């Protein structure tokens, strides 16, 4: 059980925040390229999912999994995108991502007038609070992975 990493994208596709906890294999490209690749994939999945769906959807794309990890996706109505990779034992991280949005991001970033919107975050407070929140999750324990 573990959390690998977390991305936050704004509505324009720039990566506001990235952090990793237990990531054994790096992508082998620059972080900037990785963010673009990730956002491009999310963008395509969203449009794919909405076109292929046989019914009208409420939430749309939620997650995907491979043999080794699961990617959890949460998008707010304002277009902020929260992406978290965990191992396969974490079946649903929606509440976690929602909590990060409403209790950490909104309180520490949006309500701080000194943090400019739509720019990469360098709020130390947000970083440390997020880190301790992730570490306190019941499914965070890199040793067991």
């Amino acid at each position, binding site marked *: 059980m573990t959390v690998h990493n977390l991305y936050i994208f704004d*509505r*324009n*596709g*720039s990566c506001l925040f990235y952090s990793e906890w237990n990531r054994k294999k790096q992508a082998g490209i620059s972080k900037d390229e990785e963010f*673009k690749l990730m*956002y*491009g994939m999310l*963008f395509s999945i969203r449009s794919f999912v909405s076109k292929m769906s046989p019914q009208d959807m*409420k*939430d749309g794309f939620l997650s995907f999994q491979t043999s080794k990890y699961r990617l959890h996706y949460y998008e*707010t*109505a*304002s*277009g*902020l995108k929260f992406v978290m990779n965990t191992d396969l034992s974490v079946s649903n991280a929606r*509440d976690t991502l*929602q*909590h990060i*949005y*409403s*209790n950490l*991001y*909104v*309180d520490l970033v*949006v*309500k701080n*007038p000194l943090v400019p*919107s739509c720019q990469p975050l360098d709020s130390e407070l947000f970083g440390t609070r997020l880190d301790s929140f992730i570490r306190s999750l019941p499914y965070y324990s890199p040793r067991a992975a």
Partner: protein
Amino acid sequence: MSRQSNRTTDSKKMNSELFTLTYGALVTQLCKDYENDEEVNKQLDKMGYNIGVRLIEDFLARSSIGRCQDFRETADVIAKVAFKMYLGITPSVTNWSPGGDEFSLILENNPLADFVELPDNHSTLIYSNLLCGVLRGALEMVQMAVDVKFSQDSLRGDNVTEIRMKFIKRIEENLPAGEE
């Protein structure tokens, strides 16, 4: 419509008079700083816009409301949830245009203008114009371009206070430039 929010911290409520008086002080200062009412209206709208683009995040996080399917639903959420949450009032939604792209919010009592009487030399001042900016900014962040203006204002002698909202277009989400 408004599901139980999962936040527990925000139980503190502020005295609304403090808000009203602070707003009054802001408008007073703007009237001193700028020559004419038009400019004051513009500044209020601009400030409101900057508030709105941030306030929408607070609103979405607190109300857990998702994307609205149409403009009617948007109107309902604005009147019944948002105005209630931030100003403690529920304006009525009326005067729909036949195409469903325009409506009015009727404010029985405008909390921003509780203690206000406009002097004669400020007849073109739109006292609560901040609200227009807030609505415009917040809706822009959920991909809706909307025109917002006061069409009636009880401060200026009308019977009611009416905010007219006109849907302009849906803002499409684009892939960022430089993406292949």
